[in-house]
């Protein structure tokens, strides 16, 4: 028994050391270099800063006439808008697809699941947006994020629906519940746990999305958080301190989210991924 305990402790030590080296150092590296002066940061090493220059953050925020604040506003609106629409549309769709098994729901379900695998066709999408006269608008990028995240979200809702017993709906039916009331006052409240997962996963996904805003939401006024970060990479290529200050500013919201919802995020990811 004693021997076993030692192996476990050795395992702990090795595990923590490996996790530290492989996964923590890159984040320490970002943080340390974001607080150095330009010359020091450009040496790209891990040492503590000689003096902590919190002013780097201020400088990054002020760059380009407070561009990063506009970017946060845009990313925030896109994320909130898309998540709200997704919750409404995907919960309804998942509910019907799971409860009503016939030809129509079968076809819809296959089509949506194909969307899990196939990448969006970029230029034809721009073409459609132009034909609808909504290219480069906030509305269009929200609709696109909704469309692209629909398969995954419907899948989550459909999977969760199958764990909800049908008896409640039958009782509601006998009491003369209308089909809209059935959903809004009986089923939707029961979907709360999966809705929480949907919010977190989609929020992270959409906030971190780079390629869709790059294609479908171009222009300086439209800049999103990830696009500014990419542009800063060119602009600050010789001042790593500012570049990493920008990285930290963008990473911190996710870090806070993670510290609060750690367990829910991990569980949600598993639920989403395994059912796929």
């Amino acid at each position, binding site marked *: 028994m004693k021997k076993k305990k030692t192996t*476990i402790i050795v*395992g*702990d030590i090795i*595990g*923590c050391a490996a*996790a530290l080296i*492989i996964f923590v*150092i*890159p984040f320490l*590296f*970002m943080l340390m*270099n974001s607080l150095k002066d330009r010359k020091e940061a450009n040496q*790209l*090493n*891990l040492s503590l800063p000689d003096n902590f220059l919190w002013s780097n953050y201020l400088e990054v925020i002020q760059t380009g006439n407070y561009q990063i604040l506009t970017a946060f506003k845009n990313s925030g609106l896109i994320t909130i808008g898309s998540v709200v629409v997704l919750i409404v*549309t995907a919960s309804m*769709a998942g*509910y019907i697809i799971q*409860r*009503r098994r016939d030809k*129509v*729901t079968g076809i819809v379900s296959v089509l949506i699941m194909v*969307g899990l*695998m*196939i*990448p*969006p*066709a*970029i*230029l*034809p999408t721009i*073409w*459609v947006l132009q034909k609808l006269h909504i290219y480069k608008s906030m509305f269009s990028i929200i*609709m696109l994020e909704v*469309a692209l995240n*629909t*398969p995954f979200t419907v899948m989550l809702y459909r999977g969760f629906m199958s764990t909800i017993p049908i008896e409640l709906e*039958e009782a509601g039916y006998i009491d003369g519940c209308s*089909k809209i009331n*059935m959903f809004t006052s009986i089923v939707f409240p029961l979907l709360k746990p999966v809705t929480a997962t949907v919010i977190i996963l989609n929020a992270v996904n959409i906030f*971190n999305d*780079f*390629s869709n805003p790059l*294609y479908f939401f171009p222009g300086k006024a439209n800049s999103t958080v990830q696009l500014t*970060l990419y542009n800063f*990479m060119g602009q600050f290529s010789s001042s*790593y301190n500012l570049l*990493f200050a920008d990285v930290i500013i*963008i*990473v911190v919201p*996710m*870090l806070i*989210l993670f510290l609060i919802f*750690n367990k829910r*995020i*991990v569980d949600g*990811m*598993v639920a989403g*991924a*395994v059912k796929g």
Partner: protein
Amino acid sequence: MDKKKIYSLWFLVPATTIFAVFFIIPTLASLYFSLTVWNFDSSKFCGLDNFKMFFSENSLNIGIKNTLIYAVLTSGLKVILAFLIAVFLTSAIKTKHIIRSVVFFPNLISTIAIGITFAALLHPTKGIINSFLSIFGVGRIDWLGNVDIALFSIIGVDVWKGLSIATVIYIAGIQSIDKGYYEAAAIDGANGLNKLLHITLPLSRPSRNSVIILSFIGGIRSFDLIWAMTGGGPGFATDVLASIVYKQYAAGYYGLSTAGNVIMLVLIAILAFPLQKYLYSKETA
């Protein structure tokens, strides 16, 4: 109860409409536009010219090759490494919850931020990774500047980022294995390695299949990380289909760009779909 009346198809309309207008129509249109020379106002049919060009031009067909290398290697490495980490993290060690969170965190960071950070860590003269290797007498490696190495460096970073989700899927799979198997094996005198090879390995197949499919498709579609780290360079050494789609669009060759999209779709149709079918048929067998 009358299912048709209660579960009205009208509930499907919002999701289906948005999905059809912003995903299905563009996808179908891409099949046609990939056969044309077009801009957003007009198009001229040119048959399979775009595809011929794609396969004959070296700067383009390298993208197909790189995409396949990228998809196969990232999913292969994630499948193996994540399994080992998951076995380790489901063992009796005490700090597993902390390590689990640490391993998981990269998944929440934007790919662009990770690309920027690793481009700095991999810097040929000043980067930490080279200074670390020089302790062991390894000379300076130009991770992202050497044509032969660059793609593999990015694959390494992709694996670093993607390990988290793969590990979490494996952990869920391993934890759902009936403890009775291990107890029975222990009574029969099986050691740790026996248990790993004959219980954990075969019974974690469903999660392994998810990891393979997810990372393979993710690999074929990958763009952000490559774009942030090398932009497809040096030369065309790290260009993949998705980065070619962007470059051809920026250069104004819309037909060629759309053809790149269609090739991605075809690769997924002829590789990922059958792979998934095959893996799931084994799972139920």
